[in-house]
């Protein structure tokens, strides 16, 4: 009975003279709308529009394209989401991608270091930069924005410096072949992307250290008084972010069979945007991997769809801007 009343109320609130049946339908729609988590609604809307406008949008091949196009940004965004969750920010991700890949390629080519070893060193460089970010923003008591701005600057310089600005080509065959490998029709990079998200999401939801991130982001002092070693956890988060950026670099290197010192430089804003569109707050404590993944797909689908429609490159940024606003407006959770 009360449910019925509810529906009637809703219908009345909508200011229409609907019959009982229509009111019930409206209530169902509202319930479905309410049940879908925030940014997903924006994604669905974008997808509906594009599949209506372009016959190529809803094809398997195009979906695989979308995933592979967002793979590096997506992997970096997974790390960025963690950093943002603890109320920090990491501006160095793009530069870390570049420097780790350049060091890797440089050691392999100019010093004949075995590729597996040089790759490990490259990943180590990523982790090291993350460690420095962590130390500076905890024990160094420097705002993460400033600390990571400094390491970003330093890393982009070092990436240029090792080869004096030149790119490096000629990775091992087997490595570049990874970029085209498909497992059951799914490209490896897509598998890596999804695995990273699943692993991070598991950590964040089911492991004590991962769960501590929410506590730290909510209130660092409360977390500290609750016996969490906040400094250690924060440093770990920056290390993970650095490692993931280096991993993204590897994927990029395999795809292009080359290492560019300026690779990743333009990705920074996209990476942070993905996390924030996914519903995270830059002040920390809220957000998660599901939202980030949706944010990633919103950006990926928008870019892909406009390319399919051959929208003028001059207009694309305008459409993206408007679409971001609409997508976020649909997210009622962000409206608090």
């Amino acid at each position, binding site marked *: 009975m009360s449910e019925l009343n509810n529906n009637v109320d809703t219908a009345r609130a909508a200011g229409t003279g609907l019959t009982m049946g229509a009111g019930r339908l409206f209530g169902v729609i509202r319930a479905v709308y309410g049940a879908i988590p925030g940014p997903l609604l924006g994604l669905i809307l974008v997808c509906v529009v594009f599949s209506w406008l372009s016959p190529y949008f809803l094809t398997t091949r195009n979906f695989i394209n979308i995933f592979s196009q967002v793979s590096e940004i997506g992997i970096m965004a997974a790390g960025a989401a963690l950093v943002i969750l603890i109320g920090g920010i990491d501006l160095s991700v793009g530069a870390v991608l570049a420097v780790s890949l350049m060091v890797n390629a440089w050691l392999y080519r100019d010093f004949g270091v075995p590729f597996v070893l040089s790759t490990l060193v490259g990943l180590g460089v990523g982790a090291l930069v993350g460690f420095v970010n962590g130390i500076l923003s905890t024990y160094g008591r420097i705002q993460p924005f400033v600390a990571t701005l400094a390491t970003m600057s330093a890393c982009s310089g070092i990436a240029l410096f090792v080869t004096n600005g030149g790119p490096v080509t000629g990775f091992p065959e087997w490595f570049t072949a990874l970029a085209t490998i498909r497992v059951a029709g799914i490209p490896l990079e897509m598998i890596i992307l999804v695995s990273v998200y699943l692993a991070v999401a*598991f950590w964040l*939801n089911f492991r*004590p250290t991962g*769960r501590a991130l*929410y506590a730290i982001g909510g209130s660092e002092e*409360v977390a500290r*008084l609750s016996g969490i*070693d906040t400094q250690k956890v924060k440093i770990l988060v920056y290390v993970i972010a650095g490692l993931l950026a280096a991993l993204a670099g590897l994927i990029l290197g395999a795809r292009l069979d080359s290492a560019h010192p300026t690779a990743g430089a333009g990705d920074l804003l996209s990476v942070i945007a993905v996390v924030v569109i996914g519903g995270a707050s830059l002040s920390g404590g809220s957000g998660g991997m599901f939202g980030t993944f949706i944010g990633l797909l919103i950006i990926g689908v928008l870019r892909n769809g406009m390319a399919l429609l051959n929208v003028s490159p001059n207009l694309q940024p305008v459409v993206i801007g408007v679409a971001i606003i609409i997508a976020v407006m649909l997210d009622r959770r962000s409206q608090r």
Partner: protein
Amino acid sequence: MFDAAHSEPGLVCRKIVKSYGSIEVLKSVDLTLRPGTVLGLIGENGAGKSTFNNIIAGVVAPSGGEMVLDGAPYAPQSPSDALARGVALIHQEIRLLPELSVAENLFLGRLPMRGGRVDRASMEEQSHAVLARLGMRIDPRRRVRGLSMARQQGIEIAKALLRDPRYIIFDEPTASLGEADAALIFEQIYRLREDGAGVIYVSHRLDEITTLADHVACFRDGNKVAEWHRMPVAKQDLINAMVGREFTFEHHAPQPSGDRIAMRVDGLGRDGAFGDISFTLRQGEILGFAGLVGAGRTDVVRAIAGADRADTGTIEVDGVKVHAVSPKAAIAAGIVMVPEDRKGLGLNLDRAAAANITLPWERTLQRFGMIRPSDVSEMGGAQRDRFDIRGRMGLPVGSMSGGNQQKVLLAKWLVREPKVFIVDEPTRGVDVGAKMAIYEIIRGLAASGIAVIVVSSELEEVLGLSHRVLVMSEGRQTGILDRKDATPESVMALAVGGKAVRPQLEPSA
């Protein structure tokens, strides 16, 4: 439309309703406040007192009902609307801007101007005057950060007084104050009443209500359940109305403590804060910390619990030396502390109550390397039942009433049995029923052999609970009294003891 009563001066509220979603927080409340009187408002935690006050002060909009102020309809859209009509609210929670000066906090939203610029001189002068009226000597130019809770509460009151309100609401102003500071506030309330202002006074300290109020209303579950227009009223009647049944106070003496030493603190000190703190604590013993507000009790217990470092001294638990360099280390050694500022230090108000409770214990919750949400809510549910917490454990703690938040805070630290349990101001802002429940919890802990330290500004509380009372003054330990020797007089004598040692001057900003 309006009956004759409306032509009389006063604030008349009729059928005030407030609901959050499907939850009705206020269910049709009628209440009238006359100028020149004090209306005492009582009720259990979560009864809806603060919500009612917020509606009157324009902070939240009612879902239904109407208000009439001095004969004219009154529907404030914002706090500034309310202030413009002469209605001011002193919030239950302190709301000051720590980075701004005292003077600027006092004049926030209506800075005085002269010659196109903010007139700092007159602002500071007026601030000085109003603070002096409240018996507070604070440099108006210093930042609020670093001021004790009592002083911040005083500034909140000064801020409201500066508006010259005709109706003024005090929502638990004395919750964080000692008796001396509370007396200053009462003086102001008497003065306001003499000047013809209408005052609403909310408190869980019923003695305050019986002394101050001309008229008392009691809320329960969003309804006004009782009203007394004639004073005096017996305290027991108030309690019965609040709780909704016969409720008896029992003041039983604590059970005797054990013999084994649980904790030994020797020569604990930190430069510029406190020094020479030495005491032993037996298993099952409750040690009270008494002193004037700002005596440094919080600093001492924070150092013991690893929240701040200590420069000198040693701490032993069960004969083993503890290096309490961090809360983590202290917890591992069996020392836990419930901090005094539940909003800033104790709980994460945006997170679910259950997640707050499990936070320190998640490592022990793991099964097969993972923490399952069901285990979290199970632990939350168990603590809810154990401590009689009213509210959904899956909702953010911030949406619970103050008393229930306090219970969540205690529950968080009592998931596992500690060796030493420290509570700082355990009953701040808690209703009588909950207060008794918390006392029972503390006594029960002691009875099970846990050593307890209780820091409280309510002398009655310290004296009623403790086996022994440690008194501090100006950062020094001035004495430890046995239960039989601890009287209000003997404690106060020690509390003012070291006064001359520390200069009374304000630290400049």
